[in-house]
């Protein structure tokens, strides 16, 4: 009798807790993609997206909980209901849109090669200049790059737009290796296992400020285009009300310059979407 009482009390407490948790919006991030999202020195999550998420939640008048989740399973876990939204530097791509919905974009995605200073690839064309891979001018540049990276080993983070980009444009030329995180391919770039890596330019630039990445630099153009997409919040397709809330909050944050301010704080450049 006593036991049943205790058990039902526990069950009641548990159900109250889950009801309480349902009010919160649970936002997943990767926590290994500085300066977008990363674990700070004392283990708490920090970065552009953490600041932006807190700002958006304040605008929506909702309580939010930000959790770290491996990039690999970040979309399946969203559809499985482990959390309600993804803010992890995730580009809006047609393939992802088959599975999940996206909010209106809050940032543009710019990718680049990174190489060792003394690499053969250090002199890739159009260094530091923006290049949309969908533009007509891109054709000859991409061809020239394909020739230069021929036979080289290039690292990318798996399941990213950088890996789709390599697959789409340099699949036959380079040997592409996929890593779980960008930090891991950075290690292998420095150790010499890789000739180059491709990743989001802001992430690479931030990594290069660390001492371990001394002797590396960005090479070639700053790529943008359809394959990279814009960055938005990933949501379950059925959560249309949540999407409407986030859309309104992002539009407001873009309009009053919050996105721009946060972008300049974390990236030293404005990545807010231009449309």
């Amino acid at each position, binding site marked *: 009798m006593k036991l049943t009482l205790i058990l039902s009390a526990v069950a009641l407490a548990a159900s109250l807790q889950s009801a309480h948790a349902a009010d919160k919006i649970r936002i997943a991030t990767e926590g290994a993609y500085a300066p977008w999202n990363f674990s700070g020195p004392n283990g708490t999550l920090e970065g552009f997206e953490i600041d932006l998420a807190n700002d958006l939640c304040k605008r929506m008048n909702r309580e939010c909980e930000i959790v770290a989740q491996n990039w690999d399973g970040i*979309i399946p876990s969203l559809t499985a209901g482990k959390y309600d939204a993804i803010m992890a530097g995730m580009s809006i791509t047609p393939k992802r849109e088959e599975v999940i919905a996206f909010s209106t974009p809050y940032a543009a995605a710019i990718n680049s090669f990174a190489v060792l200073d003394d690499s053969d690839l250090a002199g890739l064309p159009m260094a530091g200049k923006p290049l949309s891979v969908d533009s007509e001018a891109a054709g000859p540049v991409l061809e020239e790059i394909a020739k230069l990276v021929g036979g080289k080993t290039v690292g990318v983070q798996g399941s990213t737009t950088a890996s789709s980009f390599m697959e789409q444009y340099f699949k036959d030329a380079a040997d592409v290796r996929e*890593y779980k995180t960008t930090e891991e391919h950075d290690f292998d770039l420095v*150790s010499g*296992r890789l000739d180059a890596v491709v990743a989001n330019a802001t992430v690479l630039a931030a990594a290069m400020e660390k001492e371990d990445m001394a002797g590396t630099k960005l090479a070639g153009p700053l790529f943008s285009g359809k394959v990279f997409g814009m960055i938005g919040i990933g949501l379950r397709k059925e959560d249309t009300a949540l999407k409407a809330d986030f859309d309104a909050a992002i539009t407001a944050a873009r309009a009053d310059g919050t996105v721009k301010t946060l972008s300049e704080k974390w990236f030293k450049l404005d990545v807010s979407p231009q449309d």
Partner: protein
Amino acid sequence: MNLFDIPFLVDNFLALCRGIPLTLQLTVLSVSSGAVLAMLLAGLRLSGNRVLDGLARGYIFVFRGTPLLVQLYIIYYGLSQFPELRRSFAWPFLREPYWCASLALCLNTAAYSAEIIRGGVIAVPLGQIEAAKAYGMGRLTLLRRIIAPQALRLMLPAYSNELILVVKSTALASTITMMEVTGIAAKLISASYRPVEIFICAGAIYLLLNFSITRLLRFFEHRLSRDQRPHVVATGEQA
């Protein structure tokens, strides 16, 4: 989610099968080199020399007591941090994820197998060894005729367990960019976002591999234990 999307399952199963050669290569390479190292370690453990025994004990303690993933990361990401190593003769090997994965698996399985071998050897009844010595058998003859055949039979069940564990452990090589069955699975999932179906296919491949291995080992066990089975003598009287 539709688990009965047969064309999708077939396509992905076939794509995953392309990882089998690498999975098997990693297994065979690490098991064979690991077995040699294990015999050496078991020899040290049984040598009766306290220093050699202590060395082998230390090795086994470290490699059994730490996760294989940690060992793999230390070998792959840890060692490459030292510029001295990157200039050394070992770098052409340690540069390649293939050799790093094989090395980690080999060192790890050697620690477990050494204890299995040692267990098999000490399980051989002492009386038999004494009797063989009394017959005047030399150490090698003793090992070949008395210890090895019995120890092999005694350790085979435990060793087949270890082989199965190695096959499954090769999945960790995917964490250092190897495209074996699990590595390909991760890539296919990132293309389709359908982890359930693809992991089920990958699991089925490991099941098939391990099923073949257990069959093979059971066959050997059967061969080696011929003298342990009661002889069936057809007398024709009692039937």
